[in-house]
C-alpha cells in the first residue's frame, strides 16, 4: 500500500483466462441444473394441468427450511430428511390440487390464487423461522471435485445430476406410461381424452403430487447450497419462469436444457462483461425465443 502513483483500475471486460472461462461454464451449468430442477414441477403443472402454480416456489423454500430444521436442530441427515419431505410434499400437492379442483381454479385465476398462497406460506415461514438468514452447514458444504484447473462443487453437481435424472425419468414416464400418455391427451383435448376413458381428475391429483414432490427435492438442495431467507421465495421466480417458457411447457428435458442455457449465458456474461448484466440475459433470451417462436406458451 505504500507505493505511489497507483495505476487506474482495469476495465471489467478484459479478455478472461481460459481457466476463468472454463470455471464460468462449470458454474453456469451447475446453476442451470438448479434452475431446471425448480422449473420441472412448474412446467408439468402449467403444461398438463393448466395451473400456473406459484406456490411451487414457496413449497421449494418450505422444503429447504424443513431440511434445515431437521438437519440443523434435530441432526437428521439431509438425505433422510429428503426421504420424509418428498412423500409429505406429494400428499401436500394432492391436497392443494383438491382445493384447486373444488374451486375450479382456471389457468389465469391460478396465477392469482397461488400467488396468494405463496405469500401466506412466506409469512408462515417468517413467523416460524424469523426473517433472519439461516445457513445449514454440513461437512460437505464447500466440498469440490477437481478437474485439472477447474473445481466442481459437489453439492451443486449432485443437484444438477438429480435434475437431469428427474428430467429424463419424467420425460420417459410421460412418453411411455399410460398415465403419461393420458395426461398429455387430457392437456391436448380433455373431451376426446375423456371419451377414451381417461380419468383426468385422478391423474391430475397424481401429477400435482409429483410436482410438489419435485419442489421438495429442490428444497433439500436449496437448503444445502444456499442461504435461506423467507423472501427467497421470489428470488428464482423470474429466471425459472423464463426457463419453463424457453424449455416448453410440460417438456422436462426442455426445462433442463433451458436451465443450462440460461445458467451458462448468465455465467459467461459475468465473466466476459459484468455481473450486473447477468439478470438481463434470461429475459433477453426469452424475448428472442418468443419473437422467433411465439407459440411456446
Amino acid at each position, binding site marked *: *500500500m*505504500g507505493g505511489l502513483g497507483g495505476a487506474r*483500475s482495469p476495465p471489467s471486460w478484459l479478455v478472461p483466462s481460459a481457466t*476463468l472461462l472454463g470455471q464460468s461454464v462449470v458454474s453456469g451449468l451447475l*446453476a442451470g441444473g438448479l434452475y431446471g430442477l425448480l422449473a420441472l414441477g412448474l412446467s408439468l403443472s402449467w403444461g398438463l394441468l393448466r395451473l400456473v402454480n406459484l406456490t411451487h416456489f414457496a413449497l421449494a423454500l418450505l422444503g429447504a427450511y424443513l431440511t434445515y430444521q431437521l438437519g440443523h436442530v434435530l441432526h437428521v441427515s439431509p438425505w433422510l430428511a429428503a426421504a420424509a419431505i418428498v412423500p409429505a410434499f406429494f400428499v401436500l400437492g394432492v391436497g392443494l390440487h383438491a382445493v384447486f379442483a373444488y374451486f375450479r381454479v382456471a389457468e389465469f385465476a391460478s396465477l392469482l390464487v397461488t400467488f396468494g398462497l405463496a405469500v401466506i406460506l412466506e409469512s408462515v415461514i417468517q413467523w416460524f*423461522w424469523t426473517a433472519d438468514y439461516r445457513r445449514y452447514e454440513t461437512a460437505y458444504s464447500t466440498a469440490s471435485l477437481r478437474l485439472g484447473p477447474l473445481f466442481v462443487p459437489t453439492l451443486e453437481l449432485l443437484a444438477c445430476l438429480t435434475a437431469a435424472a428427474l428430467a429424463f425419468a419424467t420425460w420417459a414416464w410421460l412418453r411411455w406410461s399410460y398415465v403419461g400418455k393420458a395426461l398429455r391427451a387430457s392437456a391436448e383435448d380433455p373431451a376426446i381424452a375423456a371419451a377414451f376413458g381417461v380419468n383426468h381428475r385422478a391423474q391430475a391429483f397424481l401429477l400435482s403430487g409429483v410436482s410438489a414432490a419435485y419442489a421438495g427435492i429442490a428444497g433439500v438442495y436449496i437448503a444445502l447450497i*444456499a*442461504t435461506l431467507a423467507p423472501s427467497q421465495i421470489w*428470488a428464482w421466480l423470474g429466471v425459472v419462469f423464463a426457463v419453463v417458457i424457453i424449455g416448453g411447457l410440460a417438456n422436462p428435458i426442455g426445462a433442463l436444457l433451458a436451465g443450462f442455457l440460461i445458467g451458462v449465458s448468465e455465467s459467461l456474461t*459475468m465473466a466476459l462483461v459484468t455481473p450486473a448484466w447477468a439478470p438481463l440475459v434470461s429475459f433477453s433470451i426469452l424475448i428472442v425465443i418468443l419473437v422467433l417462436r411465439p407459440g411456446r406458451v
Partner: protein
Amino acid sequence: MLVRLLTLGTHGALAGLVLFALAGAALAAPSGPPIRIGGTLALTGPLAPTALLHKIAGEIYVEELNRGNGLLGRPVEWVLLDDQSKPDVTRSLYEKLITVDKVDLIIGPYATSGILAGMGVAQRYQKLYVHHSFGMPHLAKYEMHFPTAAFGPEPQRTMPTTVFEALAATTNPPKTIAIVTSKFPSAQYQSNGAREVAEKRGLKVVLYLEYEFGTRDWGSLAARVKDANPDVVWIGALGLDGNQMLEAMKKLDYTPPRHFHLFPAPGPLALAPDGKQALSVTVFEEHPPFTSNPGAAKLIPLFRERATKANVPYPYIETQVAGSLAAWQVLEAAVTATKSLDDKTLGQWLRKNRVDTIIGKLRFDGPNNYGDDLFKVKQVQDGKWVIVWPRESAAPGARLLPP
C-alpha cells in the same frame, strides 16, 4: 452523582436510562394519552434479516422509556409498519403515518433507499426525521433530517481511508485490491469511493465489479476474484452477500488473504468458518471502551435477552443495533430538552446541540446535518467482532491480525 447525571441527561438519553436504573420504581409511571411515534422497517423482504435487529432495538428502547417516565410524562407508542424492503411502499406508509394515523413524531426506516423515500414525505409535511442507516449523505438535503449513522458527510472518502490506513499499519500491507460491490445504492456509492481512494493511495485495483442486489450465481463472481488474485477483497455488500461470496471462493479452493465487508449481517459472518479475520466497519462493539458507558451497560443484557429469544444468531449490540438505539436516544434527548413535540422546535434544538448516545457524542451541524465519521475498523476474532483500528478504540489487547 445523580444530579450530575441529570444535568447531562438534558443532552442525552443515556443519562435518562441510568436514571431509570437507579430510581426506576421511584419514578411516576407515565400517564395520559400516548405519544405516538410512527415508522416503518423492512419486516419482510431482502432487508428483513438486518431490520429485525432494528425492530428489537426499538422495542426495548420504547419499553425502557415506558418503564420509566415515558416522554414528557406520557407513555410512548411505536406505530411500526412493514415496508417490505420497498422504497415505494415506504413512501406510502410514511404518508399514511402522518396523514391518517396522525402520529406525533416519526422515526426513519432501515437502509438508504427506504430512508430516502421516507425523507421526501417528511420534508413535504415538515416532520422531524431521525434515521439510523443512511449511507449517501450527499443526497440528504432536507434540513430537518438527523442521521445517527455516523458516516460523516463524505463516507465514500473517509471510510475507505480509515480501512486502508488500518491495513497499511500491518506488517505486510496489501498492494493489490479487488472491489466487488452490490448495486444497492449506498454500497455502490461507498465502494466506488473506495476505488478512488485506493488508486490515490497507490493500492492497485486489479478488479472492480458491480453485481445486482439479490444475485444468485456467486460461483462466477468468485472465479473472477480468484483469477485476479488480489491481496485484499473489498466486498461492498449487504446482509449475507459476503458469506456467500466467501463460500463460493472456498469451493474454488481459494481464500482471499484479507476480506473486507461493507455492511454485513453481523452474526452470520462472525460465526461462519469462512468469516475468520473478516474485516468491516462499526461504531460500537460490546467491549471497552464502549461498554463502560452506563447506558450501554444497561442495554446490552436487555438486547441479548430479546435477541436470543428471537433466535438472532449473534445477539450482541453492534453497529446496526447501536445506530438504531442512538436514533431513539436523539429523539428522546430533543423531546426531553425542549419539552415539546413540535417538529421545528426539536429540529432547531438538534442543530444546535450535541447528543450523548451509545455510539458517542453526535452533532448535526455539518454539511447536510452530518457530523463526524465515527466509524472504526473491526475484525472477526474467535467468532466475535472486535474493534482493531484506530488503536485508541481497539478492544483491550486486540490488533488487526495479518493473514
